[in-house]
């Protein structure tokens, strides 16, 4: 009994650094030698995929980067996956950022998917990176009213010289707005979805999903749930990447935490029963 009590007490007062170390091993080991656990497709991901799949080629899609560098491990794999899908569908991609870190990732996505950004022969015809627009939600509202409100793109090219920008007069010209964010989608629903009737899709961090779900499927036609959403999309577009490679590590870490939660609860109940 005494030995049992000591064990329980030890568990209750375990150094958090031990948990960090175990977590690090659980994440690192599957990355080095992947197991290849199956990944199912969630309704949010398939909703977004099916919608893009149904768009006729040549339609305009807005990729709105409202993401900071801190959420890049979750959001960037999503961006790479859906940009590849947009390219395969021959859709016209307009990239714009409402966070200062956004243009950097927009440029990276173009280089990863098209092989080049501003130097690509199709730049300005099939895709464009407009860069950062300061002003938060006020900027979103202005941009939705007039997508040509800015003078130059991210690389300093005049908007008037970019062929892709000429037919755009308001947010109504976009068939889809994909919001890449770690903060909120409400502002895009407010400024793009509701006033112009443009469908919204979310490439969001896992933290944000519970805030996106009230809009799904009426206003947000689909959403990618963090790294898992990115992995699902990589599967759908047959472009396995870093998200899919990270899924084993994600499952191993979840399993470890579930074990810790069970141990913690058992310990709590044992102590409670002893006290009573």
């Amino acid at each position, binding site marked *: 009994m005494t030995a049992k009590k000591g064990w329980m007490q030890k568990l209750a007062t375990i150094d958090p*650094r031990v948990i*960090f170390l175990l*977590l*690090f091993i659980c*994440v*690192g080991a599957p*990355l080095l030698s992947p197991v290849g656990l199956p990944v199912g497709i969630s309704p949010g991901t398939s909703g977004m995929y099916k919608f893009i799949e149904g768009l006729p080629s040549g339609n305009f899609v807005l990729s709105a980067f409202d993401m900071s*560098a*801190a*959420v*890049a*491990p*979750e959001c960037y794999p999503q961006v790479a996956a859906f940009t590849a899908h947009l390219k395969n569908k021959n859709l016209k991609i307009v990239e714009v950022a409402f966070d*200062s*870190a956004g*243009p*950097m990732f927009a440029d990276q996505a173009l280089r990863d998917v098209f092989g080049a950004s501003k130097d690509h022969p199709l730049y300005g015809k099939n895709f464009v990176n407009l*860069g*950062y*627009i*300061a002003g*938060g*939600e*006020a900027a979103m*509202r202005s941009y939705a009213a007039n997508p040509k*409100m*800015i*003078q*130059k793109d991210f690389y*300093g090219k005049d908007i008037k010289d970019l062929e892709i920008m000429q037919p755009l007069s308001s947010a109504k010209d976009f068939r889809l707005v994909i919001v890449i964010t770690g903060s909120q989608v*409400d*502002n895009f*629903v*407010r*400024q793009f*979805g*509701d*006033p112009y009737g443009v469908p919204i899709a979310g490439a969001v*961090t*896992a*933290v944000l*999903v*519970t805030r996106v779900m*009230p809009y799904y499927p*009426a*206003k947000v036609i689909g959403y990618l*749930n*963090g*790294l*898992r959403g990115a992995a699902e999309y990589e599967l759908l577009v047959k472009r396995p990447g*870093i998200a899919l*490679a*990270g899924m084993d*590590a*994600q499952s191993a*870490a*979840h399993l470890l*935490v579930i074990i810790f939660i069970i141990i913690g609860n058992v310990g709590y109940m044992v102590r409670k029963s002893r006290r009573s």
Partner: protein
Amino acid sequence: MAYSFLYKENRAYRIAEHIYLGAGTGYGAILSAKYVYDNAWTPLVKGNTLWAIPLLASLLLYFYFSKKHFWIYRIPTAAIIGIGTGIVVAADFRTRLTEQISATLLPLFIANDPYKSLNNIIIVFGVIGSLIFFYFSREHRGPVKGMVNFGKYILMITFGAAFGQTFMARISLIIGRIQSLYLWPAWILLPSAAVLVGVAISWDRLRQKKAKSATEKK
């Protein structure tokens, strides 16, 4: 270096933190300045004098640093807050209030679709129960108490789901960072970072030891 914080607070972590903050702030400031230069300053010097108004108004923000003329700073601030609030509140009333309420008015029983019926019952009674939980003007008794309890469980499930999602997000961040460390030239920096962390922690320990012995001598 940043992850060394998990072991303990140390100088290497603080160096990493300051570099991150400095680089991020500098990058953001440059992009903001470029945006103003491209979209306000350039049209102004080309003859579109209307741009002088917002540019001059924005300069008034610098009166924040003047004790005597601080009130001038309040003028552009009031405009920013007023416009920002107007843009959000007017649209938000529809997006997050009226349309969410109408989306909650669902039929409780749908013929030949028990799954949807159950879903609708949970949504309708979950919303009502959660709202009653925050109604404090009367004591929760009788059938109201049942609704409150139901609302409480719905709220707890929501918090649990949010926590689970948050945990998943944090793990994704670690996965992303570890994956980036596999790539060239990041992995070659690992030994240097490990040495820096080791030095920083030893340095901190040495200083703590010295401070302790100095206190003991006193």
